[in-house]
């Protein structure tokens, strides 16, 4: 649904996106992660034809955005951080206005999306009277108007309270399950990304530093949690025997290649160290992300 090939974008001497390539497949929820200024919004801007790439190719729904923007965006909906509307007009009027920038939309369709997002009864009120949560729902409604196949969500939970964040998360899942949408989600909420996304890409200073499945990230191959009567002795023994390569935080071990948790247990029990628990550790996306983008350690001066 989205293809970026060697995309490069420079703003007045500053490189915002550097040789970025990734693909979002039909039906998946794809997470775009990165710190502020990493190039996420610029990348999204290029997908929507709002920002022109300096070089490279951006395709949406099979069409090149630069040369055939109309066809590319015909069935795309987008939500941006802090949704903005014409405050002095009603929610329904806002939807009517925004729908005309895509294709003729019937009043029945407008009513349908209002109902889907749960704004029925308030659609004739001026948007200035809406809470942040209601504005987010209206933003979702406008994105759903053109019956999209692809939804691009740029920080959709930004500024929402915990209930609002939870509701947005449930809504995104509903969008995928009920409407079968492909979703690109840019978010700072790593917990949210972990719960929603099937694949992620991580950007750092405009460059892609990771692209892969969330399941693979969480598997954290080789990392095992170990609970024993004496972790220090156990770790020392296992290192001496070459069964592990590293220890971490007094509770994790990294298995050496071709060794299993069963061997670890046998070795420790044989050495008289009681094993209270041993299990494959599941890494969170947050752990993974922080390890990936953490700055290099500062060398102490002698």
């Amino acid at each position, binding site marked *: 649904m989205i293809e970026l090939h060697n995309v490069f974008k420079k703003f007045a001497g500053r490189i915002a996106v550097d040789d970025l390539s990734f693909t979002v497949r039909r039906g998946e929820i794809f997470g775009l992660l990165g710190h502020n200024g990493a190039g996420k919004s610029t990348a999204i*801007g290029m997908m929507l034809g*709002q*920002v022109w790439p300096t070089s490279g190719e951006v395709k949406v729904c099979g069409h090149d955005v630069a040369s055939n*923007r109309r066809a*590319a965006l015909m069935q795309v909906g987008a939500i*941006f951080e802090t949704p903005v509307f014409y405050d002095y007009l009603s929610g329904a009027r806002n939807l009517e*206005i925004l729908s*005309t920038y*895509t*294709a003729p939309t019937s009043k029945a369709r407008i009513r349908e999306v209002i109902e889907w997002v749960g704004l029925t009864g308030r659609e004739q009120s001026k948007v200035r009277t809406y809470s942040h949560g209601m504005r987010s729902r209206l933003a979702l409604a406008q994105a759903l108007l053109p019956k999209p196949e692809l939804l691009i969500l740029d920080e959709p939970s930004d500024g929402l309270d915990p209930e609002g964040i939870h509701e947005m998360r449930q809504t995104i899942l509903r969008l995928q399950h009920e409407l079968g949408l492909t979703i690109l989600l840019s978010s700072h909420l790593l917990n949210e990304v972990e719960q929603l996304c099937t694949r992620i890409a991580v950007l750092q200073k405009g460059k892609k530093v990771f692209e892969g499945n969330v399941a693979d990230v969480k598997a954290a191959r080789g990392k095992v949690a170990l609970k024993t009567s004496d972790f220090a002795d156990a770790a020392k023994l296992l290192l001496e025997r070459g069964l592990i390569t590293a220890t971490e935080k007094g509770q994790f071990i990294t298995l050496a290649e071709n060794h299993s948790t069963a061997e670890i247990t046998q070795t420790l029990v044989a050495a008289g160290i009681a094993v209270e628990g041993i299990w494959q550790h599941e890494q969170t996306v947050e752990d993974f992300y922080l390890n990936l983008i953490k700055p290099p350690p500062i060398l102490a001066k002698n």
Partner: protein
Amino acid sequence: MFFAQLKNELWKLFGKKRTYIGFGAFVIAQALMMLMFKYTHWQSMYERWLSGNGYLASEYISALTVALQMIVPQILLLMPLYVALVGGDLVAKEAEDGTLRMILSRPISRLRLLWVKWLAGIIFAAVLTLALGVIALGFARLLFPWKGMFVPGQTPTDLVFGIFTANEGLRLYVFSHLFMTVNAITMLSVAFMFSCFNMKPAAATILSLSFLFMSMVMQRIPFFEAYQNWFITHHFECWLLVFQTPAPWSQICQSEIILFAVSATAFIIGAMAFQVRDIKS
């Protein structure tokens, strides 16, 4: 779709309170000016002037005469201000508020978007000019009789001096508004052009006003007398020429063509700048 988009641009434009600042200012300015005309020495000055030229003053101190006198300073000062305010807002305000980003996440082309916005601005300029004329004449009629029209030669460039019957005066009064509308459209187009660049709405308004006032000031400097045709404010004065007898149609047509060309050029420059711009939050 085009008309639906245009209708919605008009909804957005006329739904905002600041769009009506100009209308409100015209009402207040005209009410004050009319009271001044009625209760100061203005009338006796005009009576002396008309009597000195052999005309019966009581026949020409009328609603039409007063309405035209009220319009002249407003066309020069208030009209550019309010038209530039709205023109400067048309694109830049949407970019500043963030609604432009939402619009441009949809498949509408940038050129089409600008086109409907510009047309909506043109409609606003026409309505504002019409309102100016109607309000001026309406107010003047409240306190002055419906009689012949006197156009004194005290306009900025002393272009005209005319005496007309009420019917003829009304016809010319209405006709002159057609040309005033072209002036307003040109002012709006200049502000619209600046609005298409990456700048705040206030900056677009101030730049366009600076451009217009600079043209007005330079036009009045004797050194530039030979270059009058290069100043758009010189061409703005052609609306007064319809009151000349006989009206210099070739001069009026030339000015109108130049003003149309300036408006089209401003739109094209604005569209080109907008097309290559990156729209970011």
